[in-house]
């Protein structure tokens, strides 16, 4: 059942359109991420849900009730900020209990709820500490507890992990997801970090220049991007210009090299210009496995990226990245050597130019 809905929501700042005709239905307990580059409108959309910006047009509802023009303090929407936004003059316990005190809940209830939230974020020992006595990760956990303490209808998270170092980010994002699932709360998460979005979300909304590019599960977004922007923005991708050779057989050419694709291009005509996109990890060297497309290549460069090795190959006149898992026994080709790579026809995505 739809819990949060945005219907034809737009936001203009003077002549600039920050968000254009945005539609989204979020189910109860769902974790949806807004993913996109800076300036794509993801934070503006989040701020409209929070009530910090009023939409120029459209409607926002929670449980069917129109909240479009309600002030932020009447929406019962919890928010976690990138900069933590803890109140420096209050202790951890006072920060968490602030929203409940504002709602004039009984002192005993506030105390119980604060203790419960402290236990959820495992910071019972820090109840009487001030924010400046905490680490970044601890401050963000307190901010999360503070937002959740008021039992919000929707939890909004505005790039909450951006200010933290890499290791804390990974552990805290797991914590955020498990707390969200445990409490069954509807969450909207804004990020420009695709790894965060892919690992946390039930669904991802990819945004670009104020518009929704694609919405889908992380699996769909990563494996079946429908636009060039999504394909390029999520994950590493080889994209190049191609030409339709045989629409019925799914054949395209890139600089004279023929690729077979599983993409439905029956509506296209021979000679149509298209974008051909292939993820680096979908390539294999022929010696490992034979697939639909067997392509002659020259090894251009080899880069170690930790758990993977990224090899740049030249197929015809076009350069592609090929990813392979790193291991100490990996038999790497020599730079300049001639070799063959292969990929399945499902790996060859044909997108509109």
């Amino acid at each position: 059942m739809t819990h949060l809905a945005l219907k034809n929501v737009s936001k203009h700042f003077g002549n600039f359109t920050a968000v254009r005709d945005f539609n989204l239905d979020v189910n109860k307990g769902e974790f949806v991420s807004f993913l996109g580059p800076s300036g794509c409108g993801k934070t503006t959309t989040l701020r409209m849900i929070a009530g910090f910006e009023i939409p120029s047009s459209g409607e926002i509802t929670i449980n069917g009730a129109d909240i479009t023009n309600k002030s932020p303090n009447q929406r019962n929407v919890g928010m976690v900020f990138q900069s933590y936004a803890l109140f420096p003059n209050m202790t951890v316990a006072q920060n968490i209990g602030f929203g409940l005190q504002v709602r004039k809940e009984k002192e005993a209830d506030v105390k119980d709820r604060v203790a419960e939230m402290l236990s959820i974020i495992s910071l019972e020992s820090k109840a009487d500490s001030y924010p400046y006595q905490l680490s970044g990760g601890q401050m963000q956990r307190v901010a999360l507890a503070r937002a959740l303490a008021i039992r919000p209808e929707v939890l909004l998270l505005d790039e909450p992990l951006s200010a933290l170092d890499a290791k804390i980010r990974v552990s805290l994002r797991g914590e955020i997801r498990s707390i969200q699932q445990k409490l069954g709360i509807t969450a909207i998460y804004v990020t420009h970090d695709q790894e965060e979005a892919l690992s946390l979300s039930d669904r991802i909304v990819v945004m670009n220049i104020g518009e929704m590019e694609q919405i889908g599960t992380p699996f769909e977004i990563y494996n079946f991007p429908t636009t060039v922007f999504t394909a390029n923005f999520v994950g590493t991708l080889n994209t190049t210009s191609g030409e339709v050779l045989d629409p019925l057989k799914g054949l395209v050419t890139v600089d004279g090299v023929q690729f077979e694709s599983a993409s439905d291009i029956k509506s296209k005509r021979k000679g149509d210009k298209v974008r051909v996109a292939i993820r680096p990890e979908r390539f294999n060297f022929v010696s490992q496995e034979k697939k639909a497309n067997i392509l002659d290549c020259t090894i251009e460069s080899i880069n170690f990226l930790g758990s993977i090795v990224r090899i740049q190959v030249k197929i015809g006149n076009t350069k592609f990245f090929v990813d392979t898992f790193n291991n100490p026994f990996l038999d790497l080709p020599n730079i300049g050597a001639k070799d063959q790579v292969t990929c399945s026809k499902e790996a060859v995505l044909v997108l509109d130019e």
Partner: protein
Amino acid sequence: MNFITRLRKFPFWSWLWFIIGALYFILPLLATFEFSLSWDPANPLKAYQRAFEDNRFWNSFMYSNVLALATIVVSIILIVPTAYWIRLRLPQARRIVEFITLMPFVVPAIILVFGLIRIYSTPFSIPFTDVVFMQPLTNFKMGTNILIVGGYVVLAMPYMYRSVDTGMRTVDIRTLTEASQSLGANWFVIITRVILPNIRAALLSGALLTFAIVVGEVTLASFLGVNAFGPYLFLLGQHRAYEPAALSFVSFLLTWLAMGLIQLVTGGQGQAAGTH
């Protein structure tokens, strides 16, 4: 490290200018103190005793303190929401407001007081009628008190506005406000429970500067004919020699005490806000 190397590293010129500057401030103070003790060699504190025995001193001093407190309260009520709203919603208005707050430096107090007397020494009547609904403010004590506090709020505005604005710059006012709103707080709760406690050092700093200005102010108080501490000290200086020196020294001590208080309070908050 040998002596020559140490000597070369010693910031000679910095120290020289610092010492000259310090002497410029300290010598007159020491001279005043020394002079205040020289009335009666048998009783060096005689000037202080005489000054404190005078009821007019206590009356004018207490009256100035009350005026200062009233000025501080009115200034906070006017300036905190203004500076807050400019930071939050009207950043484009900041330059205009800063210009207005600098006006007391440009317009002398004597002009201000003549303006106040000119406008508020006539009765307030309903326009185009002869119906008077309020006597001139200068005609009764409370009216004069309101006028002088209004004048002091203007004189203290540059100091109070800058203190408050600087305090707000050190904490992320916008995000704290949004965090409070998302937790259900209304504007009153946000200002009283979130904003004010987080700028308390800046408020105290502005309040103490305001206090120092009001307690020592002469022009407004003289022309509005109130028995404040400034005119009292001025009159005393015309007729006596030692008591004014004693009271001046006491004023310095009070100011230094105030500065010490600012340091004490600011030190604690600086740590909290700095790591936020």
